[in-house]
């Protein structure tokens, strides 16, 4: 097959070529700083605008995206990203406001943030919300810091253990590790719930709390959720909810009502903030009443009440026992909060509930269609996603092969090898923005691949064959560690 490799922008560069240039200076010229403070060279590319456009356009075509097709990446909620969000978040009033402007000049931004805080509280059943965290993991860290601060303020210093189910995402234990706490892994039972016996045995006076994803990463809503929370609370621990899977629960149940004490939202999953090829996300955190004083600082609040004729004056407030600041400025305002606000405003209470109803319907439909072909180790009504095994008795085809073969059918593969408790896991999350036809074609492809695994195993093992690139040599990448490129060696002499 002909090579289609695109040169790097450094290779495309040509000495003296100009792109966008700046106007001439309109002020009297002054001397530069002393020479020993200046850099001797600036080895950056030189391209014309058209070179840049063609380069990135070509690269973009090597990508598969939600706009291209079905992207059932479990735990990631790859729903359609409405185009209107791209317009609202680029309104000049949002694009061109500086984070340190006096609050009187940015009441539109602050009103939006204040209202979004309120909406997220209402959706989740929590008493307070911070919009500061930049992503889910950042929200987790925020939450765990608050849990620690809560115990510390009460003088309860023996607590150093966090309980985390075996199905949890890696960010949960990693967030705990950042505080130096230890992790106690709690197994799941045969129905995919937290194993209550193991939980009970682990609950004692050294427990900081528990971090639970519910529905969990198997797509199962914990059938004993109230018992789980009661056990953790009884030993003095706090209950953290990983809200990555909130797309199953909008208008269905509020984690705060169930007794969770803290939860992060992933605006880039549930509320349609695009994933951007890796980010940025936005990870607000909600807390129950006894933790509101620990929220990061600052929060958006009303600093002067309004009345019938005047709007209130919004500004920043610092919670009494705040854990401090999680990042510079106020959170992912433009790219995160404005998009999520637009999305919630356009859905309203019924629209939000419909999101979760259809996300769950789509997952159950796929599960039903695939049940006879693939082994589903935790087989009951699932929530917005489910996990099946990507392996067949008597065959050496593995989940990875199935994932790669799906690319030949023009689908993005499901998440594989996660959660860790299912062998050869394939974790499928269709989201609510897919139609029946797409789901049917996807199920058909998976059924066909199961057939191919028997009849043409090499086809599956060598997949993908129709994508621009084949499987990668990951060992070479890790051993040779070529992590950046430069201008060609004789660059200045090039024509």
């Amino acid at each position: 097959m002909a090579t289609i490799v695109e040169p790097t922008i450094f290779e495309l560069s040509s000495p003296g070529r100009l792109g966008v240039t700046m106007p001439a200076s309109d002020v009297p010229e002054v001397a530069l700083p002393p020479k020993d403070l200046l850099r001797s060279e600036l080895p950056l590319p030189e391209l014309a605008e058209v070179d840049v456009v063609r380069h990135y356009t070509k690269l973009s075509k090597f990508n598969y995206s939600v706009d291209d097709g079905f992207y059932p990446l479990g735990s990631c909620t790859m729903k359609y990203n409405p185009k209107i969000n791209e317009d609202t978040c680029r309104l000049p009033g949002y694009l061109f406001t500086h984070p340190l402007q006096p609050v009187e000049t940015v009441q539109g931004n602050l009103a939006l943030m204040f209202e979004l805080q309120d909406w997220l509280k209402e959706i989740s059943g929590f008493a307070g919300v911070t919009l500061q965290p930049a992503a889910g993991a950042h929200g987790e860290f925020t939450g765990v810091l608050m849990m620690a601060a809560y115990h510390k303020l009460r003088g309860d210093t023996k607590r150093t253990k966090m309980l985390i189910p075996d199905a949890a995402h890696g960010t949960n234990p990693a967030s705990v590790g950042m505080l130096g706490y230890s992790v106690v892994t709690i197994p799941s039972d045969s129905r995919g719930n937290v194993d209550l016996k193991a939980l009970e045995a682990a609950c004692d006076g050294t427990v900081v709390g528990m971090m639970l994803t519910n529905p969990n990463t198997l797509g199962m809503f914990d059938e004993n959720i109230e018992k789980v929370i009661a056990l953790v609370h009884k030993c003095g621990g706090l209950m953290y909810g990983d809200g990555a899977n909130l797309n199953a629960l909008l208008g269905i149940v509020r984690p705060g009502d169930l007794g969770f004490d803290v939860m992060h939202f992933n605006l880039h999953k549930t509320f349609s903030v695009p994933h951007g090829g890796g980010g940025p996300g936005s990870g607000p955190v909600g807390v129950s009443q006894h933790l509101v004083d620990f929220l990061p600082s600052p929060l958006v609040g009303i600093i002067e009440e309004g009345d019938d004729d005047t709007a209130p004056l919004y500004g920043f407030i610092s919670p009494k026992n705040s854990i401090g600041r999680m990042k510079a400025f106020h959170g992912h305002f433009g790219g995160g909060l404005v998009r999520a606000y637009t999305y919630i405003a356009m859905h309203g209470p019924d629209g939000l509930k419909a999101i979760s109803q259809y996300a769950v319907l789509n997952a159950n439909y796929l599960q039903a269609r695939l049940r006879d072909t693939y082994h589903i180790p935790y087989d009951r009504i699932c929530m917005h996603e489910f996990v099946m095994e990507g392996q067949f008795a008597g065959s050496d085809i593995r989940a990875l092969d199935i994932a790669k073969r799906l690319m030949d059918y023009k689908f993005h593969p499901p998440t594989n090898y996660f959660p860790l408790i299912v062998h050869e896991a394939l974790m499928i999350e269709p989201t609510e923005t897919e139609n029946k036809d797409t789901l049917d074609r996807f199920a058909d492809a998976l059924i066909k691949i199961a057939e191919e695994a028997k009849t043409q195993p090499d086809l599956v093992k060598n997949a993908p064959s129709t994508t621009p690139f084949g499987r990668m040599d990951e060992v070479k990448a890790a051993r040779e560690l070529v992590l950046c490129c430069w201008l060609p060696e004789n660059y200045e002499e090039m024509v």
Partner: protein
Amino acid sequence: MTYIPISPKERDAMLKTVGVKSLDDLFEAIPAKHRFPKLDLPPALTEMEAAAHLADMASSNENVREHLISFLGAGAYHHYVPSVVDHMLRRGEFFTAYTPYQPEISQGTLQAIFEYQSLMTNLTGMEVSNASHYDGATATAEAVNLAFAQFRGKRKKVVMSPTVHPQYREVIRTYSQGMGIEEAGDNSNVDLEAGPESLMALVDEQTMLVVVQYPDFFGRIYDYTKLIDDAHAKGALVCIVANPTALLMLKTPASMGADIVVGEAQPFGIPLWYGGPYLGFFTTKKSYVHKMAGRLIGETVDARGQRSYVLTLTAREQHIKRERATSNICTNQGLLALCASVYMSTLGKTGLQQVANLCYQKAHYAASELSKIDGFGLCFSEPFFHEFVLCCPKPASEVNQYLLDNGILGGYDLGKDYPSLANYLLVAVTEMNSKDEIDTLVEILKEME
């Protein structure tokens, strides 16, 4: 409105396949008493209504393009963004993709981020760049994490210059709460005369990391070579928090011997956006790559022998190393790394040098004119780039209020973070400020009572 593409007929067929009667029957695992809460939220808007509502809210702000002349920086800068940048970012192939876990169908993102890594290493002079952090402040906190991991917790002191951005220092304090770290130098009572070497008084055999800013929060340019040599002699690492626009002109932190160079790359094509999302960059030496947090892209070949790119050294990260990982970061700022790359390639070496030069020239013109006004003066004599401290005859907060009444967003009131600097204003000037704007600022200040 919703984005659900399923008709009632299709829904019924699907429910039948699943074996339940209604959508609500799918939720029996949920405790009945909490099931289906009534959410008290405003009713749904159509797209037309939402567009109008958001435009309405946006227009109640005073922005720096349409309403205010701005001299405000302090960590977020108003620069020109070439048109091409947003056109590229708006390609759905980029912004609606996930993290490139499946390299065969993500080479666009992977190569773009590999190029971003390359641009950042060439800019800073360092050997390795990761694929981004949330912002400049969290990137700096991650430098502390790297040092902590590098010394395996055996050194626990971080020495921060008081002229590192106050919010960055706050974030470091928040991040390090559970690690038993001692912070030194993080003092709002700054000695304005003290040079960077004065920090050495705090650096000892317990020190894992020294953090300084370049140019510092007051805009001053220092050569940190001596400080770095001295800190290395004590076995400590040194992290420089750098402004990327300034790096286009100034000596590289690598040439001073820095171990870690981080910063906020918002000036590279990212709108002010009321504070985010921005782009934390993180570069270091190859020898620390295994302790560096965040994603990393490496070059390799595919099964057909084509040059290609993959996420590499992933066993450092949370999904494999779990509680032993240096950091919990997962989602990063991928699209904004692309943004910075398109910005840098569109302007190219020449355009970027022009931006840096314009910032420098205009800031110096402003500084010189402002310091001629009675009662005003430059606070420091050290070289500066595009930001400087102006001493005012009265509190900076009053000066700013007066300027705002005249349509000008003044500088940053240093009294907010440094109580002894209540009369000091941190003024930023970029290529966006015309001579007319600077002259207007000067004229208005001349008339201040």
